[in-house]
């Protein structure tokens, strides 16, 4: 019997089976079939994947496929066709809407998770750093970010793209329009074509689920998505029906910043205590230095003390030792 294919996916969080869009697409497609594929869903390091990136499907011919579209084509060749019951026209529409997603929504996704400074520092980088092992967690998130920024730059055709208000507005406007169009197309149906999911549903789910579930400081995309009821219900239903275990898991990263009143301060736990201890330590060090060098002396005789009260130490006034 042929060896099974192996699928490597990013770990999940926030109620999702995986945090990566591409992984979600592949995982959802696979729920449609009972395919004998070994899944390794909890991968936290792209170095453990055969292709160097996730998701990755290692076929039994030892070929590694990384793009969801390639994986879907591979499954189709093995007679697992996600779009089997679509008519020709529906298949054409499917292709068109997937292109729409990739051109209009994906750049905004990349921006909101990887380029927007606040989101990246507080959520994305922290999540990857926490979930990767030492010493990868020091440099890998940063490298992933530069790769994503590069990708965004190439997609937009602008070499000097930087995070900013204007870029954000443009990208979010395109994304909002895309979501509106998807919402209009979905209407009140359960899935985009008929009663069973197809590859378009997988792509939409893969792109929208992270937006819906992940709590980001700059959550404009999420707000817009939540205002489109049919799309949010679409994602939630899929999670409930097809990934019940993950959707029940409480999002672990919701031990959110516990020091919100400090404004833009970094989230350092026990801030006050640390400050107090530091001050105490500094004071103790100064005092012991002063005592040891003789700037301050503790006088035992009361009479002498009455006449000349010891001067404060830090001005460096030297006291004659009154010893006798």
């Amino acid at each position, binding site marked *: 019997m042929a060896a099974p294919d192996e699928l490597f996916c990013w770990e999940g969080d926030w109620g999702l089976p995986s945090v990566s869009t591409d992984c979600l697409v592949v995982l959802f497609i696979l729920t449609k079939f009972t395919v004998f594929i070994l899944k390794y869903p909890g991968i936290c390091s792209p170095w453990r994947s055969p292709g160097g990136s996730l998701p990755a499907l290692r076929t039994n011919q030892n070929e590694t496929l*990384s793009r969801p579209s390639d994986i879907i084509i591979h499954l189709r060749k093995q007679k697992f066709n996600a779009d089997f019951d679509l008519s020709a*026209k529906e298949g*054409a529409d499917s*292709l*068109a809407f997937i*292109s729409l997603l990739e051109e209009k929504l994906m750049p905004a996704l990349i921006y909101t998770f990887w380029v927007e400074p606040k989101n990246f520092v507080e959520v994305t980088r922290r999540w990857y750093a926490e979930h990767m092992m030492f010493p990868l967690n020091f440099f890998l998130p940063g490298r992933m970010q530069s790769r994503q920024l590069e990708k965004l730059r190439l997609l937009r055709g602008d070499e000097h793209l930087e995070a900013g208000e*204007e870029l954000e507005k443009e990208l979010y406007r395109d994304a909002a329009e895309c979501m509106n169009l998807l919402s209009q197309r979905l209407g009140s149906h359960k899935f985009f074509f008929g009663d069973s999911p197809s590859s378009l549903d997988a792509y939409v789910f893969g792109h929208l689920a992270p937006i819906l579930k992940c709590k980001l400081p700059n959550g404009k995309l999420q707000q817009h998505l939540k205002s489109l009821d049919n799309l949010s219900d679409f994602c939630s239903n899929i999670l409930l029906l097809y990934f019940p275990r993950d959707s029940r898991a409480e999002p672990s990263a919701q031990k959110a910043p516990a020091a919100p009143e400090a404004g833009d301060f970094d989230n350092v736990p026990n801030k006050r205590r640390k400050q107090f201890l530091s001050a105490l330590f500094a004071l103790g060090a100064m005092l012991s230095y002063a005592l040891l060098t003789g700037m301050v002396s503790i006088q035992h005789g009361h009479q002498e003390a009455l006449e000349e009260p010891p001067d404060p130490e830090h001005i460096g006034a030297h006291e004659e030792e009154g010893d006798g």
Partner: protein
Amino acid sequence: QFLLADRFHLKSTAAEPWPENATLYQPLMDDQILLSDHASSLSVQAYLRMCGLPIQVVCRYNAEYMSPSGKIPFIHVGNQVVSELGPVVQFTKAKGHSLSDSLDDVQRAEMKAYMELVYNMLLTSELFVQWCDDATAGEISRPRYSSPYSWPLGNILAYQKQWEVRRKMNAIGWGGKTLEQVQVYEDVNQCCQALSQRLGTQPYFFNKQATELDALVFGHLFTILTTRLTSTELAERVKSYSNLLSFCRRIEQTYFEDKKLMKD
């Protein structure tokens, strides 16, 4: 790639009517222009003709550098310069000319989706075949691209452009692959199949009236059919869909009857 600042300009010049001397700039037809650029230029020309707006086509070897976004083609209308089909459509809309007003919401969603399909699959495949296939790049693309310039400037510019396009292919996962490894012709086939399905037996993609989608599809398919490349596979893929062929012929006869559409 429509800058915010341009939108303010739009509002202020919306009142001005379309001038007679509007011009469209593109690279030199016979020697310089490449498949993908010609396709984009033809799309914009077709769109403007469909709107009934007069436009003169002017060929300049440095059209790419004159363009505000670096992409071909661009139009010079009054004192405005607008490049690429998307912004041109919005620009003409601000002036009160639009082809897609009669569409309902669902149809407009489909139109936008299919336009993205063309950009995503067809344009990307064209770019790949032109610049990432060594044979085509060496025999056709680089010589044509560098033809207006003297050596070594032409060479440098051509290689620079090739490097740029190859980097972009990296971003979508097609980097460093040959024509056989990548599903280029398969993608073109799928795209044409989707377009053919959508068109069916209608004269245009939506209702009985041409929209920007028709202009875009015409621009790309006509150029693919009439441009000579190192292999005819690209054209063959399109030819296998007869309704697309008759669609191209129809648009050419309806909107370009006065003009001989030269290729190459």
